[in-house]
């Protein structure tokens, strides 16, 4: 079989199986294992397990369960809820204030958490009912929560950037620093959009009524600020120890997980139930990700080994005679297409080994490209008709929010993210100045 045909068969087979609704790990693993067995020749039957041994070699992956644990500990023990109340009281008087506050909460949560799923869960369980009750527009609510949760994997610590760092062989510290400014940029753009839109159309996000605002005294308001201090302290302890080189990356994630536990204990919320719930959810999510990564690694190895990589490189560079920038844009488009079906980790494991060498050959900075990848992934998740975030949102939202509402709600936010992506593409310095500042040229 020719390279092109193999590439098409494998990708097509995988998408077809995904459509049947079988578990993602089953769909990817089946195509990978059967392609290895049928086409690879000697050693093909060992390839699935060899992928498991690769996972064994990737030391930084140990951060994954620890960051997941940290996120669940903070949400299960109600610390994220406190954080929400703080933003709620302080931003409530503005038009659209609760939505702006939600973006703020998401930003704070993503600074303590490596995945976007946890942010979404907190947004849907805490922020959504509150905004519904205040008569916020449905579209404004779901759009805000989805947009906010996309910050999770851009702001450090980010598990996706850890995985990118492993695959692209780039320093994870630099990648994390490179994500900070684009993350803040996106958050800023979201806030500006919500603020302006609600100022023009106050019915979309009415400010809190005066009477309710006066119920909260200034002393209470100041006390609530303490809730906001906790994530800052955790973030700076963990990141400070990491960037000053006191603890390694993996050790820092253990510090983060332990500090979340200590904070929960100090607030007297570290009950048996909270602990059990946290470790059970941590196992579920970690297993889901790691089994998919393992299957995707096998897929990637077979795909690569059978020469499908050359099919794609050849298509971009020789077949369509694209220049560097056009190739880059085509890559982003292919992420949006694939991201409709796959989650970010699986897509990263399959596609990054094909694209990163190409990116470097074209003379782009691989650290900067990691940030572009992350933003593009998030856009892909939010793009109808298929997108992981859309389904998650539907699953978590109350029944009167239809899938149509959710599709409509993300349009302006996707527009903003595309704008943000274009800005980061046009000005690589935005993401690169911070790592250069810290690590030198």
């Amino acid at each position, binding site marked *: 079989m020719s390279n092109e045909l193999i590439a098409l068969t494998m990708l097509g087979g995988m998408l077809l199986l995904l459509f049947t609704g*079988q578990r993602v790990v089953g769909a990817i693993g089946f195509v990978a294992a059967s392609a290895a067995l049928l086409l690879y020749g000697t050693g093909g039957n*060992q390839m*699935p*397990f060899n992928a498991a041994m690769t996972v064994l070699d990737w*030391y930084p992956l140990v951060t994954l369960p620890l960051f997941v*644990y940290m996120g669940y500990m903070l949400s299960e023990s109600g610390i994220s809820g406190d954080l929400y109340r703080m933003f709620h009281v302080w931003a409530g008087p503005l038009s659209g204030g609760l939505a702006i506050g939600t973006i703020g909460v998401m930003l704070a949560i993503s600074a303590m958490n490596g995945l976007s799923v946890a942010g979404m869960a907190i947004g849907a369980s805490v922020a959504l009912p509150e905004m519904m009750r205040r008569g916020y527009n449905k579209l404004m609510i779901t759009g805000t929560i989805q947009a906010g949760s996309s910050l999770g994997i851009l702001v450090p610590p980010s598990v996706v950037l850890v995985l990118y760092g492993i695959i692209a062989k780039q320093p994870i510290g630099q990648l994390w620093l490179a994500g900070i400014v684009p993350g803040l940029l996106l958050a800023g753009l979201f806030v500006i959009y919500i603020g302006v839109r609600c100022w023009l159309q106050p019915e979309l996000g009415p400010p809190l009524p005066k009477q309710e605002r006066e119920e909260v005294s200034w002393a209470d308001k100041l006390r609530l600020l303490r809730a906001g201090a906790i994530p800052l302290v955790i973030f700076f302890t963990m990141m400070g120890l990491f960037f000053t080189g006191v603890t390694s990356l993996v*050790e820092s994630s253990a510090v983060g997980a332990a500090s979340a536990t200590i904070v929960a204990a100090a607030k007297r919320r570290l009950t048996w139930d909270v602990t059990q719930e946290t470790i059970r959810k941590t196992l579920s999510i*970690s297993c889901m990700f790691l089994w*998919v990564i393992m299957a995707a690694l096998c897929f990637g190895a077979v795909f690569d080994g059978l020469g499908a990589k050359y099919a794609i490189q050849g298509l971009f560079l020789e077949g369509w005679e694209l220049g560097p920038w056009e190739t880059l844009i085509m890559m982003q488009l292919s992420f949006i297409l694939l991201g409709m079906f796959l989650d970010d980790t699986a897509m990263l494991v399959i596609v990054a080994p094909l694209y990163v060498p190409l990116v470097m050959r074209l003379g782009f900075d691989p650290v900067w490209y990691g940030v572009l990848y992350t933003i593009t992934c998030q856009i892909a998740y939010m793009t109808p008709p298929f997108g992981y975030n859309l389904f998650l949102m539907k699953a978590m939202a109350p029944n009167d929010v239809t899938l149509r509402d959710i599709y409509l709600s993300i349009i302006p936010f996707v527009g903003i993210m595309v704008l943000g992506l274009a800005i980061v593409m046009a000005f690589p310095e935005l993401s690169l100045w911070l790592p250069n500042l810290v690590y030198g040229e």
Partner: protein
Amino acid sequence: MPRPLRLYVRAVDALSYRLGRLAVYLIFVMMGTLLVAAFSRVAFNTSYIWLVETMQFLLVAYFLLGGAYSMQLGAHVRMDLFYERWSERTKAAVDAVTICCLIFYLAMLLFGGWSSAEYALRYGETSRSAWSPPMAPIKIVMCLGIAVMLLQATARLLKNVARALGDTVE
């Protein structure tokens, strides 16, 4: 479902649950070991050659031993654009067919794992690191996790078939 099959499903469920409940606590082992190691390095300037590899072994044990339990908890995501609209019976019927793909993948995984573990046992394979621990124990643990995941997948298959035929599972 015939009685022997029902007993099989129940036994596999119990096994997956027990193993998963053990794996759940490995997160504390990982966290604790890393913190102690970090502290002793900063305070006493000691370093441990076993640290990195032990963590890697723990991570692999964590997610492989916990695999079957996480499947019981329904943690493995699906692309559910169409899936969520089907009736319970259609879901079960489609699943009964497509879960064979998962079973095939797991069987290949176990096959590779078994031959790798056997090699490690027979030739006393050790890791290529300064610490150089034997590889057989971790490979056997990996095989155990994959095997239980495989059993769990077959139990799911039986449940799906039963449900698709309109039979009760319990």
